[in-house]
């Protein structure tokens, strides 16, 4: 294959991403999505979160921690409901039938869409965080760079994981409604399996601690939750027993690496499975 044809393939992939990006940015969900995350930061400042000092950490670190704790809960569902329909929706409405009557390979279409969507979901959450830093600096606060970079990585990983899951769902469901239903279920399920459910399991003492920790660590949402507080002094944060146990048994550096690598890999695996299904099934 010549260089030219590789270039052409890249071009088609980027073309799909670019058009998907443009389409998303114009859509109402994107507006709501950006407003939610930008608005959250604005609200934190208005509420004076950076000024108050609670539990030993203050200023921007505290604001970023609050931001990421809320984001961990709402970002997955945002990503799931907005992207779970990207392919199944195009199929339902026969857009796929027309667009794929042009010489675009299924690879280019699928991965192009995925990259486009990734940019759309990732940019607003990062942008909101940068907004916070900029405003904080103007206000004369100290910038907690290590936390900022950790969270940038965590949000990247979080977005990848759920985007992969969403594309996976999108590839096999027959209709968008079902896709939405499954998305909600996945979210609730993962949410339920963070500390609360695990503590009760632990208390029953019927399961070994290792098993419970493994379950906890398999859940990207739990990993994020623990990673988000891992840079803070464990004595000072309210983290719950599972988080405490994890941080106690794994070194911090390793855990941070794991918390970013694992969800990214998980996302890629799901996205890849989604592609396999997409390519194997009837297209329209």
């Amino acid at each position, binding site marked *: 294959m010549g260089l030219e044809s590789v270039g052409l393939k890249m*071009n*088609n992939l980027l*073309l799909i991403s670019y*058009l998907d990006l*443009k*389409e998303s940015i*114009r*859509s109402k969900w994107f507006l709501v999505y950006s407003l939610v995350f930008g608005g959250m930061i604005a609200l934190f400042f208005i509420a004076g979160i950076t000024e108050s000092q609670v539990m030993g950490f203050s200023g921007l670190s505290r604001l970023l921690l609050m931001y990421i704790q809320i984001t961990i809960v709402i970002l997955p569902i945002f990503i799931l409901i907005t992207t779970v329909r990207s392919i199944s929706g195009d199929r339902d*409405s*026969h*857009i796929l*039938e*027309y*667009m*794929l*009557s*042009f*010489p*675009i*390979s*299924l690879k280019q279409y699928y991965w192009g869409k995925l990259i486009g969507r990734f940019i759309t979901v990732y940019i607003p959450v990062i942008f909101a965080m940068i907004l916070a830093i900029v405003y904080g600096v103007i206000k004369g606060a100290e910038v907690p760079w290590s936390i900022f970079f950790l969270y940038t990585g965590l949000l990247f990983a979080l977005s990848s994981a759920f985007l992969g899951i969403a594309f996976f769902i999108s590839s096999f469901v027959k209709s968008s409604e079902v896709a939405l239903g499954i998305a909600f279920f996945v979210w609730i399920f993962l949410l339920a399996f963070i500390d609360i459910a695990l503590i009760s399991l632990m208390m029953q003492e019927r399961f070994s601690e290792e098993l419970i920790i493994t379950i906890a660590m398999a859940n990207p949402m739990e990993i994020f939750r623990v990673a988000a507080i891992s840079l803070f002094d464990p004595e000072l944060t309210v983290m719950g027993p599972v988080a405490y146990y994890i941080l106690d048994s794994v070194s911090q550096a390793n855990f941070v690496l794991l918390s970013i690598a694992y969800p990214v890999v998980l996302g890629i695996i799901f996205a890849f499975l989604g592609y396999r299904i997409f390519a*194997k*099934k*009837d*297209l*329209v």
Partner: protein
Amino acid sequence: MIDIKNITKKFGKNISLNNVTTRFNGGDSIALMGANGAGKTTLIRMILGYYHANNGTITVNGLDPIKERVEILKHVSFVPQLPPPIKLSVDELLHFVQKSSCTSREMIYHYVNEMSLDIKEHLHKSFFSLSGGMKQKLLIGISAAKESSIYIYDEPTANLDPRARENFYKILKEQSNSSISLFVTHRIEEVKDLVNREIYMDLGEIISDVKL
């Protein structure tokens, strides 16, 4: 050349194509007819590589429509039964067409103009906000501008006013006569002058195939 051998396509228990065998050669201009649900659209989608057959094989110029979709679709123009609600603007859609299939924008403008639609006025509207007839005119213009050897039209005149239909048939007459054209239609009298072959389908089978 499109070679269809013993193609069967089922959706669940429903047999949409039942052991269909036929061949379309260069120069064939075919009217594909039959009652609603006869399997016309399904046959077209098989040729375009959208469906996996339960049985049988299809080759388009010797290639497999699923495995070699990109190579095949470079030479295929297709207008669907209903224009889909594409959310891209007209400008973006044309950008997509140009980039993905090396079609010149001037040619698209030319043919859309032939369909008496001034698309330049609508470039920044989203495609789905155009009227039904306008959408179809645009898709027809695109299909004519793309240099293909296979033209597939799944009832594209449904939303067109009589004059636009005339324009459409005029464009078709200009097309090279070594290409394959496949029209799904319910109005044979309209395409009588254009076609040299009439195929009737019913219940997923070809029940008559007449060369004129």
